[in-house]
């Protein structure tokens, strides 16, 4: 029971991360495309300025949750995906510097350098996260002790690359939806144009990935067949995708929610298919899949951490409500 609750908590935190940090990564991906002048790009950064750091905390908190609830998963996956994670760290560092340092000096060279850094690191992170999720779904060659060495040759398989592509496209779309909501005038027009442009691309990559996952992981349907109620999760995605054409350009807040719905549904469906596994083994691996039982911390530790989580989330909800209220409205109005 406690294992399933923690699976749910970890999934929710990662979905929270993807939806929240997802839009600021998407803004980064479109930074140079929508922001034609330095003034434009300043507004784009202002649209995420006060919230991006808090969004990123979801990733760190999810990492903390993994250490405390599934320490063996944390140990195995972080050491296995070693070089990819180091790239993630470096990109997170460069991206954070770009967001915090760009506005410190009013010099065109300084600002251009950080604009390019911000954009490339955002695209790189979206791509790496997508590749990582793709590999988690596909599985890795686990040995009998639950370890593996994730070389780039192993990780850059077609399925994972499709995952990376999906992440870049959907997050860019998500970022455009956020910008449509937070900007006005020409910037909003350009953001809406990118929403329209990325919409068909989103549909194509989502459909391709879902189709490919039936081939790569046919057994993922088992959970949905056993508990048909779970079909609500993918249904949310289909509904959100279908609603997008009506909402884009007309209702920016609902369009943003629909975009968030697509991302949440994608990750949620993956989690629903994966359960109770956390990191499947590739066919032919000597070791079994890592799941919520064989990687778990002792139950006592998990119960204590769950108490911490529930208590802490009350505060987090209060802060986030407050902060998003303070920064509500369009950037130009700041």
């Amino acid at each position, binding site marked *: 029971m406690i294992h399933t609750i923690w699976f749910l908590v970890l999934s929710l935190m990662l979905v929270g991360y993807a939806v929240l940090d997802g839009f600021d990564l998407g803004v980064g991906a479109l930074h140079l495309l929508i922001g034609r002048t330095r003034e434009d790009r300043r507004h784009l950064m*202002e649209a995420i*300025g*006060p*919230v991006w*750091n*808090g969004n990123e*905390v979801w990733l*760190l*908190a999810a*990492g*903390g*949750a993994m*250490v*405390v609830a599934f*320490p*063996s998963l*944390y*140990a195995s*996956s*972080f*050491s*296995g995906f*070693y*070089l990819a994670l*180091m790239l*993630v*760290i*470096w990109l*997170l*560092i*460069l991206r*954070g*510097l770009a967001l*915090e*340092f760009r*506005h*410190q*000096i*009013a010099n065109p060279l300084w600002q251009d350098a950080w604009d390019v850094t911000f954009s490339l690191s955002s695209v790189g992170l979206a791509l790496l996260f997508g590749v990582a999720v793709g590999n988690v779904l596909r599985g890795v060659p686990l040995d009998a002790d639950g370890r*593996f*060495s994730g070389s780039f040759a192993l990780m850059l398989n077609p399925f994972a690359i499709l995952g990376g592509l999906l992440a870049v496209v959907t997050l860019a779309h998500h970022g455009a939806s956020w910008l449509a909501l937070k900007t006005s005038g020409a910037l909003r027009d350009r953001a809406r144009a990118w929403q329209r442009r990325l919409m068909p691309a989103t549909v194509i990559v989502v459909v391709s990935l879902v189709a490919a996952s039936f081939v790569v992981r046919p057994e993922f349907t088992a959970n949905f067949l056993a508990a048909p109620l779970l079909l609500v999760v993918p249904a949310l995605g289909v509904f959100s995708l279908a609603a997008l054409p009506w909402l884009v350009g007309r209702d920016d807040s609902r369009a943003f929610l629909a975009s968030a719905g697509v991302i949440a549904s994608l990750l949620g469906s993956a989690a629903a298919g994966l359960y109770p596994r956390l990191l499947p083994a590739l066919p032919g691996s000597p070791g079994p899949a890592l799941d919520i039982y064989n990687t778990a*911390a*002792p139950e*006592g*530790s*998990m119960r*204590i*951490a769950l108490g*911490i*989580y529930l208590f*802490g989330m009350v*505060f*987090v909800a209060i*802060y*986030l409500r*407050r*902060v998003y209220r*303070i*920064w509500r409205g369009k*950037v130009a109005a700041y």
Partner: protein
Amino acid sequence: MDTSLIAARVQFAFTVMFHYLFPVLTMGLGVLIAVLKTLEFAGKGREYGEAARFWARIFAITFAAGVVTGIPMEFQFGTNWARFSKFAGPVVGQTLFMEGVFAFFAESSFIGVFLFGESRVRPVLHWLSAVMVGAGAILSGFFIVATDAWMQHPVGYQIVNGRAELTSLWALLNNPYAWWQYPHVVVGSLVTASMVMAGIGAYNLLSQRDEAHSRLFVRVGVIAGVLSSLLALFPTGTYLAQNVATRQPAKQAAMEGVFVTQPEAPLAIIGMPDSERGVLLDPIVLPGVLSFLAYGSTSATVLGLNEIPPDDRPPMELVYYAFHIMVGLGTIFIAIFLLAGFALWRGWLYGSRVVLWMLMLAMPFPYIANEAGWMTAEIGRQPWIVYGLLRTTAATSTNVSGGMTIFTLLGFMGLYLLIGILYLVLFLRIVNAGPGASGHMEAHA
């Protein structure tokens, strides 16, 4: 030691020591800014608000550098220390998770309001956000020290199937080792922030500009510095050392250069340990003082390294020097701050070029003292990663080779060199623009 172990240790030491250069300032500075904001809020004068805004700009770049260099720390437990995470994750994961849930969310939410929201929120909420950012930084420090304290002195756990299980959260958070380690870390940070604030004030006074604000910086920095430097010695430093003496005798022996168990052990003020021959070269000692400091009696027996099996001894020279550098610098800070405090009280501080020069030149040294203190704590714990339970040699990732870690270590070195240069450039620009500047070079959300 094999390459992958050395590489993992060097990488962790390098990244954590570089990272700590930033939080060591922000923890203390957050408190001082909250004090300045409170004085402004209490109607003590407009210049307190201007000073708070100036230091908030320094805080902003320092906080940013601290956040980005902090990310690798949490990752490294998994990437390079997988066996440690497997063994200790159920316990240390609790405090790391709590740092994320209780401290990071608060800090990251309120920092934006504090830095950019002054025009958007009521003054009381802006004051509250300053307090929350300061409190968040201090709280973050607590969870990290609680994690480290468990590695120094494991409590509230049992070993089940070869790994640690938490039995009492209260014991973990109320670790007697952290009682003095945590206050010592906080006052160490306050000494740093006080010295930087006083030092920047002195720099401006010696450059003959912005008299009013600079005097305020020197005044606040010196008053906070007198208090915090004394607190670093007593009670926090003194009792932390007693904790080490009773709970980690091997670390104490290395710190103090005690090779042979002896009653009425002398305190070595200066001296160079030679661990090959087991002697302290050219020492200056105070007879019986170490016995008194460690156990409250000049005749108490102090354990020497000779009684500790060679496999359980920490690397002696590094621990000895790190500890002596920390204590020596701490003593010098007390002397400087008492002198400056006396001058402030007698009213001749702002005109005394000698004292102002001392304050300015002393700025880098609290950083060194804080790093040396952590070196004493962490290297002195060796060869254990969790004291008495797990050896450092048994804690690394077995599927990450030394070559991979050396490659990423070089990457970190290059990236951190860049961060260091950029930080200094921005720091100097903010200082030279002074508190009179209109805030950011460019308006920001």
